[in-house]
Every structure is written in C-alpha cells, then in structure tokens.
C-alpha cells in the first residue's frame, strides 16, 4: 500500500496516523513479523522497520540496546529485506525502512533500492543523510516509486525546510525536540512551538509526522491537536520488547495494548 493513500485515509477519517517503529531482528528475525502484526492489529497504520547499525548516533539507550540485540543475533541487511517482504505481503500497511546511510552506501544505492523495491518497501528514512548529500539517492528512489522521507527539526529554518520538502515524498519526519530517540515524560513548550511553525510552513505540501520521545496517549492527543498528520512511536514499543524478552506472548499482548491506546488517542 502507498503511503499517500494511507495519509488520505487518515485525513478522511479526521485522525492522525500512528506509525510504529521496531528494530528488525530484535528479539529475532522470526519474531519481528509477529510484532508488526500485533502493532497493526492494535491500530498502527504504518510499520517502520529499523535496520540495526553498530553506531546509531541519533538514538538513545533504548534503541541502541535494541540494535545491539539484533546485531548480536547476526541479523544482516539481506535477512531484513527478505523478512520485510513477508510483512508487506501479510499485513495491508505500508512498510518503511529506517537505516543509517552507511548501510545503503555499503550495498550501493542502486542495489539497495532495487532490493527494497523487490521487498515491497514504500519508503526510506535515513537519519544521517540530509537532502544535500542525497541527490542521486532521491533520483533513483523516485524512479522506483520508493518515497524518500527526510527529517526536519526545531533548528530547521523556513528556507531549509522548503528545500527539504522539495526532496521529500511520503511524509516529512518532524523531530519533536533537540536530542536523540528515547521516551520522554514531558514535552516543553518549545516542541509545540516548533511543530506549529513547521506544520504552518509545510502547509499541506507533504504530510507531517512527528516523532522522538512520544510514549503516552496524552502526547499523541496534544500533537494531533497541533495539526500533524502522523505520530511516530518507537522507544515506547521497544521498551516493551526489552522488558518481556523471556515471554513473547506477554510481549505481543502489551504491544497490542499500547498500540490500541495510542491509536485511540490519535483518533481525536
């Protein structure tokens, strides 16, 4: 399914989409599709699969540990692409890959996109690739109908934002705060101000999804009110995985439950 169709659906239903992030291969490559299924059954609209990287500079301790668990299982890029195909075929939601740029570079941009296309991937986020360094990548991805999801941050100026939007398709990934990934209890006014400014400036040119730190229904409600089109939740789900490594039934149940609560909050 295309990302744009999903956002259209959300708009029609007057809700923001819930985008769920998990690391592929944590706790194992076999279990990842089950986790995705539990999330989707709980109301997650788009699955974002992280390809683990040894040096995840944009991530806090929760996703760092998750990446290390996956890598210590010996997870490879190829395993992840093969497994993604299964998720795409089984669940009727768009699947997005999150990958540090070195993973793409190592395989070769063209080859990586080709494999992603074969797996049915709808879009790619690369947290350390700004549009300035991604010209060839954007061009090739476009030819394969894979969306290139770039990021905006509270420090992004309006002029930079316009340039970022020109390279962005699918949705814009708005980073809610200054910092790395990881759940936060409270958001400062600064985040709301930044999100408002970005949503206004984007003005419907692409959907805006906000992520980093979001873990509670009240966060989801607050940000949805600011007019964002999607909410991205990662570390909150991964904490559940981390805390239930020895009980996969409970892990699935809790993931499903949190997804339900959050998607319910996105419905307002």
């Amino acid at each position: 399914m295309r990302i744009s169709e999903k956002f259209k659906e959300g708009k029609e239903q007057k809700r923001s989409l819930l985008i769920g992030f998990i690391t592929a291969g944590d706790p194992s490559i076999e279990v990842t599709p089950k986790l995705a299924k539990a999330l989707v059954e709980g109301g997650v609209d788009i699955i974002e699969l992280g390809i683990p990287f040894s040096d995840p500079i944009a991530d806090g301790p929760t996703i760092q540990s998750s990446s290390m668990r996956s890598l210590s299982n010996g997870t490879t890029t190829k395993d992840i692409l093969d497994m993604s195909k299964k998720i795409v075929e089984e669940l009727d939601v768009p699947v997005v890959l999150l990958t540090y740029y070195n993973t793409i570079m190592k395989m070769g941009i063209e080859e990586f996109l080709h494999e992603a296309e074969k797996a049915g991937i709808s879009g790619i986020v690369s947290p350390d690739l700004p549009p300035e360094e991604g010209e060839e990548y954007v061009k090739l991805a476009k030819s394969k109908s894979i969306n290139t999801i770039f990021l905006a941050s509270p420090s992004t100026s309006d002029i930079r934002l316009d340039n970022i939007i020109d390279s962005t398709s699918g949705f814009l990934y708005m980073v809610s705060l200054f910092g790395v990934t990881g759940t936060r209890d409270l958001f400062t006014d600064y985040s709301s101000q930044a999100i408002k400014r970005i949503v206004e400036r984007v003005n419907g040119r692409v959907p805006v999804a906000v992520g980093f730190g979001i873990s509670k229904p009240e966060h989801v409600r607050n940000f949805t009110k600011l007019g964002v089109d999607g909410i991205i939740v990662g570390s909150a789900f991964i904490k559940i995985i981390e805390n239930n490594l020895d009980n996969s039934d409970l892990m699935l149940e809790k993931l499903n439950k949190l997804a339900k609560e959050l998607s319910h909050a996105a419905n307002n």
Partner: protein
Amino acid sequence: MNLKSQPTDGKFGIFGGKYVPETLMPVVDELEEKYNEIKENEEFNKKLSKLLQDYAGRSTPIYFAENLSKKYGGKIYFKREDLLHGGAHKINNSIGQALLAKSMGKKRIIAETGAGQHGVATAMACALLDLKCEIYMGSNDVERQSPNVFRMKLLGAEVHSVKSGSQTLKDAINEAIRDWVTNVESTYYLIGSVVGPHPYPMIVRDFQSVIGREIKEQFPKITSQQIPDVIIACVGGGSNAIGTFYPFLDDECKLVGVEAGGLGIDKGKHSSTLSAGSEGVLHGARSYLLQDKDGQIQETHSISAGLDYPGVGPEHSFLKSQDRVEYVSINDEEAVNAFVEMSKLEGIIPALETSHAIAEAIKRAQELGDKKSIVVTLSGRGDKDTPIIAKHLGNNL
C-alpha cells in the same frame, strides 16, 4: 588537480561532506560561515598566534636525532610537538577552536578523546578561556590512559566514561554527537582530529598546519636541503599527519602516513583504516572505514588509544586516492620497540601513537641510506603511556 585546494562543497574529491542528523545541519552550516569569516580576521589571528607562542610554547624546535641516525642510517629529524604545553600537538587545534567557540558565544564545550591528549588540551584551553568543559572517553581508554583522566579532572573538566560498543574513541565520538544534538544551542563540539562533518576536517587541518609551515621554514636553516626527502607522521584520525603534510603537498617529497597495525592486519585486529578498509560514511563524513560486508563498523585494536579508530579523516582518503601520500601499517610490537629505542637512544619518551611513526622512520632509514633526510612529527610525549608499557614489558624493562 591542485591538491591544496580548499574542499569544494565540503568535499575532498568524493570524500568528506556533511552526513549528520538534520538538527545539526544548521549548526555545521553556521560553523562553516563563522569560520570562513574569522580565519581572515586579523584580531583573531593575532590572539591565536600569541596564545600559541606564550601559552602553548610555539614554535617547536626541529631536532637532528644523531644517535638514532648513526645506528640506523639516514638523517632523522624530529619536529618536537611533544614539547608543547600538554605534551602533544592537540593544543594547536584546541586553542584555535576554543577561541572560535568563544567568538560564537558558546559557553559549554564538549569533546571526545582517545589517548586523553585531546581531552587534556581541550580542558586546558577551556580553563584558560573560562569555558565549561565536558569530555567523552571510552571506558577502555579511561583505564589504559588513566594519567590523562586525572589531568583532565584537575583542569576542571568533567569526564564521561562511555560504556557502549568497543568503549574506545569511536564510541566516545558517538556519545559526543548525541550530547551535541541534545544541547546544540549552548554547546560547541570541539572535535580533536580531522574527522567529522565538514567544516571540521578543514578547520582542524588549518589549525594543525602550523606544524608543516614551521618545518618548511626551519628545515632549510639546519640542513643543505630546502625540502626533506621523506616526511613521516602517524595517523589516527589524521590531524598531526595532515598538519604536517599539508604545506608540502605541492612539493617534491615523499609523504608517509603510519596507521596502527595492532596485532597484524592479517589477524583482523588492527586500526589500519586506509590500508585495509573500504569507503563508507561514519561520524558525519564519507571516508575509508573498517566495516563488514553489511557496513557494520568493526572493532579495532591498537596498543595506542589515539590510533584505535575504525575511521580516518576524509582528506587522507582523498590523498590516498590521488596517490600523493603513502599509507603504511606498523604493529603493536614494532611500536613498542621504537618506543623503547627512542627512549634509550635519544632520551625522549615518545607517545605510543608517535612510536608508530618512529618505527617506520627506522625502517626507511635503513633502506634509504645515509644521504637521505627524514623528518618525523613527534606528535606527543609518552608519559601517559608508561603504565601500559610497564604492563606490556613486565620485568623486561
């Protein structure tokens, strides 16, 4: 191609660039702008020169190592960066960037350190210029370079021991970048080598190029030659090497960068990024890396913490691709032997990092014979390494 040209669009050939999270993009753009402004500023340059002279101890001498030359052949000279305040070349860069940070209105400085020399130099510059200083250091390095940890603390810096990954320089940089993304508005990241996103590799190179400029001025005064036949420096991230080489890029002399061979490249336990790595993106720049087939960064090994890094400055990758600099590898054992030899023959205890360059110089002197001149950048002194050498040599010392 003019090898000495400034990076275009932040790149040295295809290497370098700005591969950073969006939050940092406006920050590195601003830094580039500010730096390009200030490097032409007379007042800034006066202040920098004065501090380098009166505080850091520049210029450093160039010294003919007679005993070593007599034993191994060639004419071996040392550029004495070990005599600088703090005991290494790192202060050239730390003072420059701390002044830059101050002019940008930043009050908090963060830095990574491997051997602890950059941490010490940065802590000194921050004490001097009244800046808050926090240093990230891999927990492995905290242990093996403990004398420097104590020095940093004495100088008023807070030292964060980093327990993730291989617990060395790479992980210290990861953690410093995470801090930077979190505190962008208040904080200046004072990178210690010619690595990281543009403009850092250019800034650090410019501040370290004083090494090569002085060699160029001093060498003809003490020899009958204008330019040395061979110039050698060790390469961790590559700052003392690029600072040494840069003024000589257009001259006719052999330039040799020495990486850490650890237990041997064939054993897979080393830090010889340029000799054994492949292209990739790490810590904000495209360069050579030690990585597996999936692009996961590999664990490195070197007896010297300052060379124990799976990446290398992008300009070195460029100079390798142009065949302008030859990059070689010296293993732990050879470095330790050079460390001991240098101490016994010249009365100078060199840093373990530097000992790699000295080992290479000894090899080349034997091959080249008496007529050829070799200049080695003595990037630092080895006091910090005495515990590790004592442990390594045990009763053989």
